[in-house]
């Protein structure tokens, strides 16, 4: 078992947790404001596909990343319009968006690249850089000479660093700023927030749009960071795992990020254990059982066996202003 727990496992955990963290924190903004976001999966797919196609044409990962954010926000606006303006059922809307984005990238890639669901390979130079590559690129002359020696520590994607910052900023915004207070108030007790002069629907709109932007970045990381093209349904349920992490983390930023790390670790372990780890009887441990861990954990947590996880009180209920 010892060779399993290496530094590469740690880094693979970080890599796999990055998109989860971004999507889960995105979901946090939406859900703390009182709008369930089942559509994280669809938002990530939108971001991933847009990032890959735009990067392919523009040959620039930063334009690709920006486009992914725009795509995430655009889809989020649809969700917000449906759920907030037209008071649609939030779960149903989210499911619709998820189904739509199983199909739309495939339709568009068919039209743009004459392929059935994937984008062309993007050259290595146009992918989102690691911290190392980034430092190398911005200051080639004054490249600090200690960096190469610590290369292993800087060999994670720049997006991983951004994800970390997002968590810290979110923790600050949520608990230390007026906006954070309003966001929480709108999700817990919209009537009281409204009475205090907060525009419930406006705050919720912002919450949903932030979730679109962050899930879009998460998607971009998948297609032009971790991989070098978009493939059909490449999120493979990560949007739902992010949702699970959000619940496991009790809708709090730092705990949610830790839950993402845990699920990322389970994922990394699955990859490393294939054919390595054996049961005492000498058989392989079936990967399916490791894959199940995050989902089982979520159910157990929700049932209250490992501490209570309480959702924002007004979640899922469209706000009806009294007249």
């Amino acid at each position: 078992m010892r060779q399993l727990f290496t530094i590469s496992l740690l880094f693979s955990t970080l890599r796999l947790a990055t998109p989860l963290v971004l999507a889960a924190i995105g979901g946090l903004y939406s859900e703390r404001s009182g709008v369930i976001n089942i559509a994280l999966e669809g938002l990530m797919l939108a971001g991933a596909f847009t990032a890959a196609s735009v990067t392919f044409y523009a040959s620039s990962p930063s334009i690709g990343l920006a486009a992914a954010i725009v795509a995430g926000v655009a889809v989020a606006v649809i969700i917000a319009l449906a759920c907030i303006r037209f008071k649609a059922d939030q779960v149903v809307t989210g499911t619709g968006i998820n189904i739509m984005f199983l199909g739309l990238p495939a339709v568009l890639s068919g039209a743009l690249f004459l392929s059935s669901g994937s984008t062309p390979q993007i050259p290595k130079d146009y992918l989102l850089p690691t911290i190392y590559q980034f430092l190398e690129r911005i200051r080639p002359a004054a490249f600090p000479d200690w960096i190469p020696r610590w290369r292993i520590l800087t060999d994670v994607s720049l997006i991983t660093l951004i994800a970390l910052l997002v968590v810290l900023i979110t923790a600050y915004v949520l608990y230390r700023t007026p906006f954070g207070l309003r966001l929480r108030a709108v999700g817990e007790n919209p009537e009281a927030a409204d009475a205090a002069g907060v525009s419930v629907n406006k705050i919720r709109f912002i919450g949903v749009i932030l979730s679109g932007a962050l899930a879009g970045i998460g998607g971009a990381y998948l297609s032009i960071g971790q991989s070098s093209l978009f493939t059909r349904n490449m999120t493979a349920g990560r949007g739902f795992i992010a949702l699970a992490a959000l619940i496991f983390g009790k809708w709090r930023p730092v705990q949610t990020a830790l839950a993402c790390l845990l699920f990322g670790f389970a994922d990394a372990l699955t990859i490393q254990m294939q054919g390595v780890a054996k049961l005492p009887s000498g058989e392989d441990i079936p990967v399916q059982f490791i894959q199940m861990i995050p989902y089982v954990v979520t159910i157990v947590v929700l049932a209250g066996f490992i501490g209570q996880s309480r959702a924002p009180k007004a979640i899922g209920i469209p706000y009806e202003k009294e007249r």
Partner: protein
Amino acid sequence: MKLLREILFPLIAVIAAFVIGGIVVLIIGDSPIQTYKLLIGSAFSWPDGIGYTLFLATPLIFTGLAVAVAFRCGLLNIGAEGQLYIAAFAAAWVGIKFGGISVGLPGAPPVNTPYASLPMLILVPLCCIAAVGAGAIWGGIPGLLKARFGSHEVINTIMLNFIAVALVSYFTQYHYKVPGDAIMQSAEISSKAHIARLGKFIPGLPERIPLNLAFILAILACVFVYVLLWKTKWGYEIRATGQNPSAAEYGGISIRKQIILAMAISGGLAGMVGINEVLGYRYRYYDGFSADYGFVGIAVALLGRNHPVGVFLAAILFAILLRGGIFVDAFTMKVSKDIVQVLLGILIVLVASEAMFRGPLKKFALIKRAKV
């Protein structure tokens, strides 16, 4: 007026979805009219078009009914997908283990030996019971969790979907696959567990078209759900719980019991997809067979207004699109069959955002009244 509204809003949503989808097709650079001609027109030829359309509608009727029953109790069952996977595997398992099938290569020692070799008259019902029972259990779990711990059924059903897929894939890969088979599928079930294809009874319908007795079962299931919900005490209690839980509880109805019951019935209905798939079509469990039937079922129920008749019609409509998708793939330049999923997604969002149409319509009605 109520009936008109029940039909009018879904109709407007369908038309609006087609218009938006048409714009997407136009942007991509194909003709929307030609695409829709292929998409809808391909379903009406005899025997292939109609046969395949009804075959594709069968699982959607089951999942649509499943979602509708849960909806009527105020629950959203996103877990039909997981329930039908577990159920399909259960049906195949019974068809193998009680059908006298040894899993293994001929000549080599078997991986898995059967318990019994039952005659058809017992084996087929047993397989059906296994499918419905497994689905009911898998659906009942989130019901129980909600009733006992108050945890939300939406999250639990999503989680159980993933667990179901992993579990069934484990059993297929490690215990019920013929060794060396490159495809993730179980061994074939006993021929005594097959149910007849409708081609056997209908002249002119060849038996290669997989439309089978499960379609008749689907129609019966529609009748069953109608009778259950509107003609029995159970159904009354389920609907009362869905409409106003506190009033229902005050009236002496145990909400917890209704939640578990509704989810179990819902899961059982979803599980019937396994009968169509395993006993009537592929005669084995095929990993990943479901084309999102569970999720499309949500759209079917929504468009069908959670009523069996509506569910039936909506399932047929979606099946027409799914069937037509194949021809869109083959005969248009750029649009692929995935446009069907886009249309479905747009449709779900539009149906959910009913208020969007209601507002303008109300204004329209007011204007008319003012003129009079």
